[in-house]
């Protein structure tokens, strides 16, 4: 038994200082010598219900795997432009009906299978097959036939010309997959991208590791390991960022927390824009919204600036039609029906609702949706319109009641698909909006191979919607991204819902 006296006062003091010194050394050494980190922890508000973008719609799937694990024939870059990828180059026949692609050589899937024209044919045929559950199947219906004359060339013949086909082929829904791993992609994604799928602890995180033999030497990747952590609660997300557990959070769901990060030196926080157009869809097929004047009146009852301030703390941009400022050919049509309660009341009276109008609003349970609903409710009350809010469980119940059964008066949702103005030509669709003139404009625009005419036509389409108001065009959701100051390479805007990590790296 050690007697107390052995640790006399001076000896104990010596012992304590030695201990302190021992602790200090590693800390000092750490800072000076370490090379920039090669691992990244990314925070995401929602966990994807699977990792196969070709078999499910939620954009969060593409935000994990697109351009990281999977690649397409073409890709959309950070400015929304189409760039070559697995298709090195392509030629389009004068009548715009035949596309011949020259494919990259020596490309392998993560499971060792080779990528060639036959695999590309398999992937495109899978999307267009009758039993296919590809969420964007309609976009590729224009492809009549796919042929692979030799392993390096792919020939597509279209039923009618399409100006946007190359853009559609760059979307997450059209990434290249191969037959062997096709059925297991949902929980074990196999692609040709710079990162390989490592593990997925459901409800918590997905881990990707750098693929050593990636074909595209030009786009060298700077990260060895990427972890996507799913943090739903905004307050927990902010806490994880501040505690350093998470390095970047590309889509912070709570705008009210964003201001603090903008002021914080340790973080870069520059708001961009997404493709998510928040529109209050109305059931144009039934009273009272079958009457255009009622729709126009309600549009004038909405003060978009105040709505954005209330619903998203002022971040995001007002829109006058189903088009975002990011997209080429955008026209600012917020002036068509500006905020004018008096005129709105007059128009309502003219439409026969002078004594008042009542309808129900099916509000999905996302934060932006419930807040928008409450603000619209107050704004409509100012013009004598009573709106009862029916919170509706999202996605299942809302999709069934609004999209399939179309039993709703008004609702609100953010449409995330890029360049999707054509949905107002869909029949059947939840708007119940039938305007042949609009349909022809959009159809001709789709077939216009020449850029200038296509953008002019899209401009016309925006004008028709702005004037006809099949839905109240409110605002575009911002991309409130936050990352540690020592990180660069993230996209500012989100022309395609994604987190392309190929250019992301630590500066020191």
């Amino acid at each position, binding site marked *: 038994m050690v007697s107390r006296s052995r640790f006399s006062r001076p000896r104990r003091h010596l012992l304590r200082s030695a201990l302190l010194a021992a602790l200090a050394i590693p800390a000092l050494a750490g800072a000076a010598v370490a090379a920039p980190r090669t691992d990244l922890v990314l925070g995401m508000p929602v966990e994807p219900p699977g990792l196969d973008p070709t078999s499910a719609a939620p954009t969060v799937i593409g935000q994990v795997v697109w351009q990281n694990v999977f690649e397409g024939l073409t890709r959309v870059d950070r400015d929304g432009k189409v760039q070559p990828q697995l298709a090195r180059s392509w030629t389009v026949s004068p009548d715009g009906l035949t596309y011949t692609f020259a494919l990259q050589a020596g490309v392998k899937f993560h499971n060792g299978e080779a990528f060639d024209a036959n695999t590309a044919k398999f992937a495109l045929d899978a999307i267009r097959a009758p039993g296919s559950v590809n969420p964007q199947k309609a976009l590729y219906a224009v492809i009549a036939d796919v042929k692979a004359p030799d392993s390096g060339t792919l020939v597509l013949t279209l039923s009618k010309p399409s100006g946007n086909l190359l853009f559609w082929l760059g979307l997450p829904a059209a990434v290249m997959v191969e037959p062997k791993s096709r059925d297991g992609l949902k929980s074990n994604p196999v692609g040709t991208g710079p990162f390989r799928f490592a593990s997925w602890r459901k409800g918590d995180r997905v881990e990707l590791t750098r693929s050593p033999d990636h074909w595209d030497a030009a786009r060298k990747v700077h990260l060895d390991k990427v972890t996507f952590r799913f943090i739903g*609660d905004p307050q927990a997300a902010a806490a994880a960022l501040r505690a350093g557990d998470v390095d970047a959070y590309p889509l912070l769901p709570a705008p009210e927390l964003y201001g603090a990060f903008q002021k914080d030196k340790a973080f870069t926080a520059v708001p961009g824009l997404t493709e998510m157009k928040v529109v209050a869809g109305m059931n144009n097929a039934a009273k009272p919204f079958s009457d255009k004047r009622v729709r126009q009146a309600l549009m004038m009852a909405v003060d978009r600036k105040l709505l954005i301030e209330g619903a998203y703390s002022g971040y995001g941009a007002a829109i006058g039609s189903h088009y975002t400022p990011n997209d080429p050919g955008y026209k600012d049509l917020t002036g068509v029906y500006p905020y004018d309660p008096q005129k709105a009341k007059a128009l309502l009276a003219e439409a026969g609702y002078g004594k008042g109008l009542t309808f129900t609003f099916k509000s999905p349970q996302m934060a932006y949706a419930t807040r928008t609903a*409450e603000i619209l409710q*107050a704004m409509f009350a100012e013009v004598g319109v009573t709106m009862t*809010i029916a919170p509706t469980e999202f996605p299942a119940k809302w999709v069934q009641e609004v999209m399939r059964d179309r039993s709703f008066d008004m609702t609100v949702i953010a449409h995330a698909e890029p360049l999707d103005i054509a949905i107002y030509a869909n029949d059947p669709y939840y708007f119940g909006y039938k305007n042949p003139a609009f349909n022809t404009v959009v159809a001709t625009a789709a077939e216009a191979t020449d850029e200038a005419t296509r953008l002019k036509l899209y401009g016309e389409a925006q004008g028709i919607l702005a004037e006809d108001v099949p839905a109240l065009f409110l605002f575009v959701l911002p991309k409130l991204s936050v990352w540690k100051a020592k990180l660069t390479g993230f996209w500012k805007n989100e022309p395609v819902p994604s987190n392309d990590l190929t250019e992301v790296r630590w500066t020191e």
Partner: protein
Amino acid sequence: MRALVLRPRRGFRLDDATLLVGAVLTALLVGVALLSLVWTPEDPARMRILQKLRGPLVSGLLGTDHLGRDLASMLMRGAFNSLTIAFAAVGLGAVLGTLAGVAAAAGPRFDAVLMRVCDALFALPPILSAIMLGALLGPGAPTAIIAIGVFMIPVFARVTRGAAMQIWAREYIMAARMAGKGTVRITLEHVLPNIAGQIIVQVTIQLAMAILTEAGLSFLGLGLPPPAPTWGRMLAESQTYLTQAPHLALAPGLAIAAAVLGLNLLGDGLAARLDPRRRQAS
């Protein structure tokens, strides 16, 4: 399950204090709730978005919320909404639960069936089942009431059954039976009055739980739909403003705490007053 009772310390004094404080707090609560029907400083639904997130006394007594609505008015109207949901839910739970419990104690045949149903109800995860009910019946006060009330039935059933069984075993019940009274009359005249104390304790405790469950439901987007404010939803929505505007979370939180405290103290005071056995104990 033994009733949760605060043992009286020195005979009367503590019971009276608990009862008094509990009664005052609850009366205050009910008073504010009723007053809100007639008058509130501002219209709880009126939004002044440009004056959003103002601190207490800067704009209105308790400041404004994230949409510029007056917090004090919302709290008052919220008191009414939260209380009505809580009282209705507990009413549902207590009545059905007590019926089941008493029936189970009276008739062994009922006992097996009812207890199996209670076990089944008990084994369902509360929050999950509330969401299912919400999706099934659609949002609104009735759904919240049913979602909260249904899960109280097993609790009341268990408490009443336990207490009623003790009473059935007493001699004076044999005497009543000798006098030819039927099971129903015995239950009404002898069993219920004797277990009233324990039921009342459970009622006040479950009232407190109901208010908290409504907060949980609102957190999941299920409680009473907008624009009717409830304490639960105010608490849920204040969550992301905790650092910026803590008063948003503090106001409903303290209101819930006061209500729960008042109800619990009232329950304990009543239980001590009603149950002679407890009052005399040294």
